[in-house]
């Protein structure tokens, strides 16, 4: 009862919903729930955002028949900036990554840091059915040689086409169609993986300062055969004050070969503009 009262108070404090245009407020952007190491597969909306932020993420993989499991958590720091009407870029550093791995009786916790990731976005405004639409091309690269805990190196990239559309005053639809590429190289070998992905999110501005988001991800190819996952996610974004916002999300695969069982993310950001 006490929790419900608190929740109602928070929603009431969030105020009535507002319509700010498709890119008016970053809390309308879709939740990013990455599945892959270092989070380079996480999505975003087509809107340019200028902010600095910190995000903690967690993931769990429990493979009971294989006597295998991983539990991981990471803290990533990011800055995103807008350069004109069409361009935005970002820089993300995974400050710390702590992973517990159990392989039968081996149990090991390994902290590490890195990698650095850069991304760039080019977008244009349009309309669809008379409502605002933002289209963008986006690329992100997790830079090799920027991790601490391996002798070799890994690098990764995402290239995606993004669309964000204001379907209604409170409703936004975000779509992503993209490709993932990953390569790892050590003295003992080279490994590459690639995947195609598509996602769609529906974001609803429930209150003026509060938006919720549900989305579906589909990914093929990462596990080198068939559907990687059809995953759902749900997120919430909450503007704390004029410049500050919190966001959190959780995702879980419904079908496919996905090894991860659950991924969560929780972040805080401060708008720069």
């Amino acid at each position: 009862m006490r929790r419900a009262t608190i929740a109602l108070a928070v929603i009431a404090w969030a105020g009535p919903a507002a319509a700010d245009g498709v890119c008016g407020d970053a809390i309308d952007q879709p939740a990013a729930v990455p599945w892959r190491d270092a989070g380079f597969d996480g999505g975003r909306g087509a809107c340019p955002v200028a902010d600095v932020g910190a995000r903690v993420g967690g993931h769990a993989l429990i493979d009971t028949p294989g006597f295998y499991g991983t539990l991981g958590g990471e803290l990533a720091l990011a800055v995103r900036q807008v350069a004109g009407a069409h361009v935005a870029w970002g820089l993300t550093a995974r400050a710390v990554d702590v992973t517990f791995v159990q392989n039968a009786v081996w149990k090991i916790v390994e902290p590490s840091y890195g990698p650095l990731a850069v991304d760039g976005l080019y977008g244009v405004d349009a309309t669809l059915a008379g409502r605002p639409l933002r289209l963008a091309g986006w690329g992100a690269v997790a830079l090799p040689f920027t991790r601490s805990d391996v002798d070799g190196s890994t690098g990764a990239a995402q290239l995606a086409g993004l669309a964000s559309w204001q379907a209604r005053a409170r409703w936004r639809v975000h779509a992503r169609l993209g490709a993932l590429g990953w390569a790892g190289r050590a003295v003992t070998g080279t490994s590459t993986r690639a995947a195609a992905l598509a996602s769609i999110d529906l974001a609803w501005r429930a209150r003026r300062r509060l938006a919720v988001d549900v989305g579906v991800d589909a990914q093929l190819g990462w596990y080198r055969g068939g559907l990687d996952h059809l995953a759902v996610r749900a997120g919430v974004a909450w503007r704390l004050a004029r410049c500050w916002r919190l966001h959190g999300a959780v995702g879980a695969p419904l079908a496919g070969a996905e090894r991860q069982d659950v991924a969560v993310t929780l972040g805080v950001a401060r708008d720069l503009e």
Partner: protein
Amino acid sequence: MLARCCVAAVATLALFAAGCGRDSCLGGDCEATTPCGDLAFRCDAPRLYVGAVAAAPGELGLARGQGAADDVLISNGVVTAVVSAIAAPTDLAPTGGNLIDLGPSGGADDLTILYQLAGLLPDDAFAYDRLEVVDRSPAYVAVIARGHLDGRPEVAVATRYELRPCDPGLRVRSELFNDSPDRQAFVIADAAHWGKRRVVPFAPVDGQGYLTPPLELLDLTALWKPYPFVAAAAPAPDAPAYGVVACDRATVAGVNDLEVSALGTPIEVVPPGQGVVFERFVVAAPATDAGGGPAAAVAPLLAARGQLFGAATIEVTGAVQAEGLAFGGDVRRASIVIRGGGDDVPLTAVVPAADGGFRAVVPATPELSFELWSFGRRELRGSIPDDGALGVLTVPAPATVDLHVVRAGGGADLPIDAVVVFEPADDATRAGTRGSFHGKQTLCAPWLGPPHGASPACNRVLVEPAGTQVEVPAGHYWVFASAGPDATVARAEVRLDPGEVTAVDLALRDLDVTPPGWLAADLHVHGAASFDSGLPDRDRVRSFLAAGVDVIAATDHDYVTDYAATVRALGADDRLLVMGGLETTPLIPFLDVPGEDLPRVIGHFNFWPLTPLPASPRGGAPWDERLEPGALFDRLDPLIGDAGVRMINHPWDEPQFGRDLGYLRAIGFDPRRPVPATDDGTPNGALARRPGGGHANLDWDALEVGNGAGADEWQKNRLLWFALASASHPVVGTANSDSHGLRDNQLGWGRTWVETGTPVGATDVAGFDAALKAGKVVAGSGVFVAVAIGPPGAPRRGPGLAPVVPQPGDVVAIEVRAAPWIPVTSVRAVTSRGERVLAADLAGPADPFGVDGVVRWRGEVPLAELIAGADDWLVIEAGLPPPRYADLDDDGVPDTGDNDGDGDVDLDDVEPDEDVGPIANPPDPTDPTDPRFVMTRIVPESWPYGFTGLLLIDVAGDGWTAPGSAR
């Protein structure tokens, strides 16, 4: 801004694409990856060989090696190693490509296997699929094995074994690359399966040395410790010493145990796209005039560390004498552990050479000290001077005992093979002679030698007909001699003085325990071909003779032998029938059992006869992993033939090292429930499954009811045997020793008597097996139970699986026989309806050392009193009443003994942190008046019992019908 970012990203990617070198076997050029490249050794006559074992020069070979003709031998004339052919997996490894023999060239091999793993699960074993032989003589020779982890095809692996001229060890480099999508916790480690009773590892870290901590598999992460090097050697004069040192890092990490050592890299997270490399130097060295033991390997290990890391060393020298005479050449006489540093870390151990001298190299360490062990006791300790010269160390001189045992009576005394046991006759001698192998393994009083090695072992000696001399610490002893349960036990009291030679002559007399026409057999016997036996073949065969058995099934773990050459050499062909055989010993868990989290293995089965094929992998034994019993039987059928025997061994034995030893326990068989005709998904239903389409999983011919001389295994297994008989699966019940040495399980205790109607010299394998499979069997530990059914005064039918159709008035005639030194107080009849005591509180013979009183009980019981109305099976048992055991976990099989001795079995008897158990034989008595005293001197941890084979009573003559599940 964006442009600058893109430029940076592209530049970084370009750098990434350029790679970080490909000097690895997995990544590219294996030729460029000489392991331990900074090492260099010199010698006078360098040579190199790599090729098939069959084509290798004989002088490079290894005594006791098990390399098959198609395996690859690599040698430089200093060290010889054999890498198993890919299609010839051995022991724990899922494929070939592993070291199965290693030793000084022309010397001996004590290695079972050295294989690579990345984790503990079978999935994480290196599974090789290609073997490349590289001959770059005169620079080097190499063998390269490539593959992947056994259960993770996305994790590629490779190992390069390389020898350069004069190297005292193999240079080994293993690589692993994680192409899986998951972060993995991996190591690269060499696992050496020592097998508990042969090679003893020596770890130079605080608190270890020979005293390795218990290897708890669930604590393996915490136990995985760094070592500067690790050495190992069997405590035998001709044993090679082994050792390993890392080349690409300062330490090797891992665990050491009498069962297995695993040494390699630290446990680390290996992300996708990353790998691990491990380079090490694996040495094998013979004992020299500098001494033997682990020190023989430590010296080259430290030489390598000196070259690799600049580690300084000190040489410690000295000589051991007893009464002014050189005293060395054997770990029994002298073994020295050298310690150093503030924590008194054991650094090496050396067995002085025959002249008493020794030279041992140790890492340069302050505060060096030594401890000198002799006859299992630490006799001397002291500090080592800065120059390392210890001078002469003096230990107490032992006495020498000249032992002769004869068979007396019926004419001239006949010198015979026998077992002689020394027993302290007073407390002072017991306290003053109790010893162990450097504080490890079995405590013995006196300690005459390593308990798992050659004679003398522990406190017992094999005496040959020509007599045997043995060194014994001075003291007051009883000396017992035995030639098995068909002879008396002789006893003599001696006082042995240091340095004196004392003759002890002991005379035994034959006893009529085994009736004519019956042969005594031990159908479960191990020797040096087994990974867990350190007993040389000669002593193994002498133990057959000393135990008074006629027939042996040689059943080494996963290797076919028959001791034929040794039997011939000892001139025992006419006294022994040794059948080549095999104990299949699966080690790779695979079997999913409903309700169990962990996969299982199917336990052990014996098969005979088999023909040894030394040029074939495993001596001709088929690969037995990942097979259910039925499929295993199918695989063995063509080898043992129609007349061959399949026996399930110790079906309810406890798992060891995570491996099941008994199939019925592994599947959770419930003896209180019926066995369905088809697999219904229950544990009992698994018995009916035909996994290979041929045999069902319960298609064994014999079940090992008695395993060893104690009552514990017998009491568990008899219930399983009875339950299967009640469920329409009556088979032969046997009792065997499962002996691995001279001290653990005594050969011939238990034993299986088989009525062949012929003496051993006139018996062939086929005839013996036919009689056995017909069920003409009595078995037990020292007690022979003769039984026959028929009318009073008329010909009677003895044991056999052919049903008996009783006639009105038929009786069961029983005669229980045992040597006077074996107590028998009880005779019981057992059917599916329960037990009936036929005789109790029988008095023993007046003189346990005499010849009178062999027949302990003779009687006739009307069959109708035992079997009434319906078909049933009948077994007669005799001996002492079984010890108190209880089934605390209610699975139908006893699991716990009266361990606190309070007269009942309850939770108070259970060990802390356990649900049930242990179940063990009652302790051996120390009171000479105890009825078990003499028997337990000869056969420690024994309990007298005997039982007949199943008698199937077909009451109506309409075919025997099983009485249903056991009641």
